């Protein structure tokens, strides 16, 4: 059950990134680009969650996961502030 939840998180966040990037070309603002980029990092973070908790449970990747998520959050905040009036 736990593995199912972790893997689903990774899959859904990856889907978000793909869907957002598919719409970047037709968009007037760069917000979709920054959102897509942020979701790529969120997807990487969720993949790391799967690796951390299922593949290498003897190691603690929490700080790496948190740094990747921080990158995602920072990118999206930058996009929200810079690309919008």
């Amino acid at each position: 059950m736990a593995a199912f939840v972790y893997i689903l998180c990774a899959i859904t966040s990856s889907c978000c990134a793909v869907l957002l990037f598919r719409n970047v070309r037709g968009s007037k603002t760069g917000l979709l680009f920054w959102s897509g980029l942020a979701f790529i990092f969120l997807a990487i973070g969720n993949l790391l969650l799967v690796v951390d908790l299922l593949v290498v449970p003897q190691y603690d990747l929490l700080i790496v996961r948190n740094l990747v998520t921080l990158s995602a959050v920072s990118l999206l905040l930058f996009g929200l502030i810079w690309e919008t009036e």
Partner: protein
Amino acid sequence: MNSILSNFIGGANTFGFLLIALFFAKFWKRTRDPFFRAFALAFLILGIGRIVEAASRLTHASTPAVYVLRLVAFSLIIFAVAQKNMRSKKG
């Protein structure tokens, strides 16, 4: 040392998610576009999810169930993007 740094970054992430939710809420208020409402809700859920994760770690009651909130947030975003695409194709 590692856990202090990890908690610090985790706190920054939580605040970041909530701030992003606020931005999207502002866009929704201005445009009334349900796309922004969904994003605001999703990031609010992600922020709350982080708080729940931290609380569950503090009380040593960590379960995979806390990650279900992430699943809900991402599903909301997928739904919002898909709905937006369908609306653009129609009109």
